[in-house]
């Protein structure tokens, strides 16, 4: 069976797996963004806090994803829980790092002026600082998404959802006619999803960047 015949005959199943893959990654990136941005806001004014948060999250990213996934299995069992935990942990670094860099990069004169016209501390954060830091945060989300696409494929080992299952089915059917087709469909599927999501990020960036700082 040629690759295209295979894709044609399993189209519905592949589409479901692709949807589950993208949905898991997107949800975990959103969760990582919520945690990462809060973490960034909590520490960006303190040099020590920023240092510790950045160092810790980059140390987590250094740990092999398969090893972390393995460690989570005895703790959290199989399926959604270890997958989500691992994906969120790996997604944190780029977002925390970029939130801190973005918030620290806001011109003091701008925040002073906002305070001067009577805005509250929270108002300055929400209406000035976070909006100016948004392109940096979004760039962090984009890097996280690309990374998590690949890690989510490995999570199929812990019975996580998505295209990794197609790759592993190929591996376990070694020698059969469809083994290569399956591994190829899973791998190419992840690449296509990664490219599509990357395009969506460019679009979101265009639409949500404050007019004043749009390039």
């Amino acid at each position, binding site marked *: 069976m040629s690759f295209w015949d295979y894709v044609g005959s399993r189209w519905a199943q592949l589409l479901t797996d692709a949807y589950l893959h993208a949905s898991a990654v997107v949800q975990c990136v959103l969760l990582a963004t919520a945690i990462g941005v809060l973490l960034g806001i909590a520490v960006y004014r303190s*040099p020590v806090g*920023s*240092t*510790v948060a*950045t*160092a810790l*999250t*980059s*140390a987590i*990213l*250094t*740990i*092999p*994803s*398969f*090893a*972390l996934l*393995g*460690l989570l*299995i*005895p703790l959290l069992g199989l399926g959604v829980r270890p997958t989500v935990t691992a994906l969120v942990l790996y997604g944190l*670094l780029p977002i925390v*790092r970029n939130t*801190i*860099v973005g918030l620290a990069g806001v011109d003091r004169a701008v925040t002073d002026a906002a305070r001067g016209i009577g805005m509250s501390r929270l108002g300055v954060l929400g209406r000035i600082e976070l909006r100016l830091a948004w392109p940096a945060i979004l*760039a962090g989300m*984009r*890097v996280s998404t*690309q*990374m998590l*696409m*690949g890690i*989510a*494929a*490995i999570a199929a080992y812990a019975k996580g959802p998505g*295209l*990794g299952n197609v*790759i*592993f089915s*190929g*591996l376990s059917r*070694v*020698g059969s006619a469809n*083994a*290569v087709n399956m*591994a*190829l469909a*899973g*791998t*190419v599927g*992840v*690449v296509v999803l*990664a*490219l599509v999501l*990357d395009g969506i990020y460019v679009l979101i960036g265009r639409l949500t960047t404050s007019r004043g700082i749009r390039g």
Partner: protein
Amino acid sequence: MSTTFTADSGSSRADRFRLFGQPVAVLLVLAGVLFWAFTRELDDIERRNINLTSLLDHTWQHVLLTVAVAVIVVVVAVPLGVVLTRPWARAAAPVVLAVANIGQAAPSVGLLVLFFLATSATGFWVAVLPLAFYALLPVLRNTMLGLRQVDRTLIDAGRGIGMSAVGVLGRIELPLAVPYILAGLRTSLVLAVGTATLAFFVQGGGLGVLIDTGYKLGRPAILVVGAVLAAALALLVDWLGGLAEQLLGPRGLR
């Protein structure tokens, strides 16, 4: 697509903090886990996997996988980066970078499995080659970046005092690009240690074997020891890479 994996913290203070904190934390955790594993009651299967010979064997295989990947990456990516920054080959640079970027958007486990199925061979090199392809991009991109940021006037000065193009490359451009190349190599090494845990899928050995054995046979202790060893190895390799970045740059730039 310019977004790829990097463990670069983007903060020199955090880097310094990790330079001192990381090896201490790693050694403490590693010692704790090994102590726990060796002092508890082990059953037959556990004893066969959690013993000094087995642990050293798997760790050594893992180191060999990592070193092989790193050597291939340096041997391929640095010359390729040099070629792609020469004026006569500059047109090819975006094409090669696009292919490398797509290569890295592919899941490492997919590349590994595909290469295994396509060659229908197993073992060390079947794991090393796709992993090397996967880890190629950071060194390639940083070599190109490092060579491009060299001040034009330095190159012109070198040519002006009569150095050949090759001489300028070897004695001016490459030494000035070394810090960039080392940063890329550190990222590639971390990627290599991480993806080497997947080598067991194609019978390539490494610490992934322990993780898989522990999982398949329902012996969490074996799984935990393998995973902690792999994590410790990755953090130590990253630490050595950080050390190399500090120590190996050209003296004039330090």
